[in-house]
């Protein structure tokens, strides 16, 4: 048994160290999709989360500043009047990893969330709302004067 334990331990620590060296961690989280968060383009990230590309909809309201002076902290809020919203996700097209946040909305929670994201440079921000009848999106361009993703 000792042998098996040490092997498992070695595998685990090895995974952690390897994860430290690269951009994304090697430890897979249950709900946290590495394929989506680690994707380097918006299409790939969306493809990992949705079967069909989201349709633009007027029922999704994305509130974001026109100009973000500081890309490190950009306040965003997403609202939707669609019924049965199960998830809200935020994408920043020009970020190294476009998927910023994803919120799971259980029944009883309103489709209205605010958060703060990072933006490397001027980019379109897209909010995607998932309901039982498909995925809907809204986009807005946010100009960034000072980037927040470091370099």
């Amino acid at each position, binding site marked *: 048994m000792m042998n098996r334990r040490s092997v498992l331990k070695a595998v685990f620590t090895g995974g952690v160290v390897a994860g430290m060296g690269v951009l994304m961690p090697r430890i897979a989280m249950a709900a946290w999709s590495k394929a989506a968060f680690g994707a380097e383009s918006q299409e790939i990230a969306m493809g990992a989360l949705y079967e069909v590309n989201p349709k633009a909809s007027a029922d999704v309201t994305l509130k974001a500043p026109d100009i973000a002076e500081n890309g490190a902290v950009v306040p965003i809020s997403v609202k939707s009047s669609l019924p049965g919203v199960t998830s809200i996700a935020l994408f920043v097209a020009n*970020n*190294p*990893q476009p998927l*910023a946040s*994803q919120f799971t909305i*259980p029944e009883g929670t309103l489709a209205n969330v605010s*958060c703060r994201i*990072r933006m490397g440079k001027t980019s379109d921000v897209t909010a995607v709302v998932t309901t039982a009848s498909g995925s809907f999106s809204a986009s807005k361009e946010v100009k960034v004067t000072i980037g927040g993703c*470091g370099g």
Partner: protein
Amino acid sequence: MAKGILRAKAKAKGGNTVVKIMAKHAMETGNRKDKSGEKIPAKYIQTLSVVHNGKMVMESNMGPATSKNPYMAFTFVGGAKGDELQMTWTENTGSTATETAKIK
């Protein structure tokens, strides 16, 4: 292991509860370099879930593009003054903790 990094304000109003949570966390992306040009390893909160009376009211998955000291606000139906919210966060390094807040 960091402890007590969440600051939460929850307010019951008209049958709904408005929850605002701010986590004190650097949210290191892994893209930044230190003075010697070495990449600073990524260290950020990946998931944050909020449970009220044994029912999940919000689960958020965050990537490195979530800002430093991440903030989020949402509203759920129900919740009364004095109820407790359990908030659990998990870092990409595997650290995790559960903190509680009372609805005011």
